[in-house]
């Protein structure tokens, strides 16, 4: 699935296959988990992981579009999640009295997604002028900037309206007023309206968006620009536009994921979205296979749950997680094994 150089018939066949597999996996997992949830056989710990898992899935699918399909290393995905999370929390907080939970959640996710897409576009203008490792470091820088800005942002509302302040909170609230974002303390007292069903729908939405993009004319242009920039340019593909499209859609998905994530916790601090979170999502994408959406789905779920499954090992769990990560990279990139796997695959075909 890595490049679209193969025979057309094969591509047509395999694309339906991988799409079908994706949707089936997500829906099957949802049904099984819902059944388990209602029969009460899921532990509280595990129940608490369901929504975050869907958030990471959406963010990872988005990042795979950016890193795998478009081929630009992005180390700032968590920054986009932060934008979505805090705008979503603000929307939900503002409309708390006026709208019931479900439309409010949908509206919060849409606003988070659109706002993040806008931020992604603005950041994309300078970022996409760069290439390779320089692009990566600039996305890292932007992620840090976004996080630091939100840590210094104060948003509140009372009967007189919404108040926004920066660096220091300069407003006295009327009685009944409420802080939506309180600087370094982040968002507190958020009503937890995110649900697993909403998360699953969001995952399916992300899949539909990404699959439809990949197999469209634009998607082929994005991949052509990745595989050979100069050749793509010479056949008239507008590199800047195609890269921007992937970047903005990736950011928008991260924003939607962030909005859902933010509304899943009663308190949320911006430092949650530091570069470690960006890297975590990148690890999901790379281990799943660049450009391989099914791989992303599986690796995100496995790697997200791994630290929890290793809980029995207590203090050693993150150490073992690190070792597993290194060993997977060493094994999957081992030339001897690769040739063997390759010959196996050829025999099968």
């Amino acid at each position, binding site marked *: 699935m890595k490049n679209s150089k193969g025979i057309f018939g094969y591509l047509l066949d395999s694309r339906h296959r991988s799409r079908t597999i994706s949707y089936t996996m997500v829906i099957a997992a949802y049904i099984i988990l819902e059944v388990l949830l209602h029969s009460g056989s899921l532990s509280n710990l595990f129940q608490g992981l369901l929504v975050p898992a869907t958030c990471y899935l959406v963010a990872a699918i988005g990042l795979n579009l950016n*890193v795998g399909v478009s081929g630009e*290393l992005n180390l700032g995905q968590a920054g986009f999640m932060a934008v979505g999370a805090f705008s979503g929390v603000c929307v939900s907080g503002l409309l708390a009295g006026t709208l019931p939970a479900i439309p409010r959640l949908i509206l919060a996710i849409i606003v988070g997604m659109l706002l993040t897409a806008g931020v992604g576009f603005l950041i994309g203008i*300078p970022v996409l*002028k*760069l*290439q390779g*490792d*320089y692009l*990566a*470091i*600039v996305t*890292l*820088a*932007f992620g*840090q*900037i976004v996080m*630091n*800005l939100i*840590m*210094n942002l104060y948003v509140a509302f009372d009967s007189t309206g919404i108040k926004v302040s920066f*660096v220091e909170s300069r407003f006295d609230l009327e009685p009944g007023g409420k802080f939506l974002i309180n600087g370094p303390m982040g968002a507190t007292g958020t009503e937890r309206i995110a649900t697993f069903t909403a998360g699953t729908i969001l995952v399916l939405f992300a899949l539909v968006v990404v699959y439809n993009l990949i197999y469209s004319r634009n998607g082929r242009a994005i991949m052509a620009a990745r595989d050979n*920039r*100069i050749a793509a340019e010479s056949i008239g593909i507008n590199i800047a536009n195609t890269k921007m499209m992937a970047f903005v859609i990736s950011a928008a998905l991260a924003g939607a994921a962030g909005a859902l994530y933010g509304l899943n916790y009663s308190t949320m601090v911006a430092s949650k979205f530091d*570069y*470690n979170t960006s*890297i975590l999502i*990148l*690890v999901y994408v*790379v*281990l799943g296979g*660049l450009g391989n959406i099914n791989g992303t789905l599986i690796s995100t779920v496995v790697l997200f749950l791994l630290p929890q499954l290793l809980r029995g090992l207590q*203090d*050693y769990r*993150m*150490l073992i*997680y*690190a*070792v597993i*990560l*290194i060993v997977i*990279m*060493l094994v*999957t*990139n*081992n*030339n001897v094994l690769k040739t063997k796997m390759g010959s196996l695959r050829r025999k099968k075909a």
Partner: protein
Amino acid sequence: MRFLSNLVTGLGLGSVYAIIALGYTMVYGIAKMLNFAHGDVIMVGAYIAFFALNRFSLPLIPGILVAVLGCTVLGVVIERLAYKPLRQASSLAVLITAIGVSYFLQNGAQLLWSASPKMFPAIISSGALKIGNLSIAYLTLVTIATCIVVMICLTLFINRTKTGSAMRACSEDKDAARLMGINVNGIISLTFAIGSGLAAVAAVLLCANYPTVTPTLGSMPGIKAFTAAVFGGIGSIPGALLGGLLLGIIEILSKAYISTQLSDVIVFGVLIVILLVKPAGLLGKKINEKV
């Protein structure tokens, strides 16, 4: 006068960044990889120095040497076990492995030495040199002096010795270097050894300035120094010095005159502006892609 003293403080911090950035830039220049675990090698160096100076009460210089030796060995071991098998793999695979190593070191340190912060002993008397109204802490002077000495030694080594020219050859063209009989793997190991040894020096200077030792101590200076390396043009040794110093000065000045909370925003903002004007960093070489 306040400006001058801030400038000197900035130079002091910048010197630390510069020494760390050297590790990033050398490894990038030779092995073409972003060594995300470098910040955590600094952290290990800080712990080794802490135990050498505090627990075993070694004198200062032997204590630092122990830390340098420890980090050098650590760097070479990491390179052998984790990075060497991936010489032919994609750069992303190496990046993820480096992240794995970083997690490993952080969590290993937490297990071995617990997450509670340890106080690094004062290694340099707290006095200050007074020039007119300007007073410069001895610590800052020592930091800047160390950076200068490191830079001079490294430049001489790279430009004047046979091994140094082998290193330059490897960074330009590994295959050609191999044909000339250069042991490329050896050179890469040596680069990691030097970078990690410098990380230990940086660790001691960092902890002398900010004396709390924790398992995550290396990550923020690591990112800043990485930024500094890119700032100056990654792969370029004078670039690392320039980038480190500039970054330190910008950070301290923006803390002093603009806002403490927003200093990181300003530092990273300047990086972005510089990369837009000079896409390969201040002293980086722009290599044009051939069709």
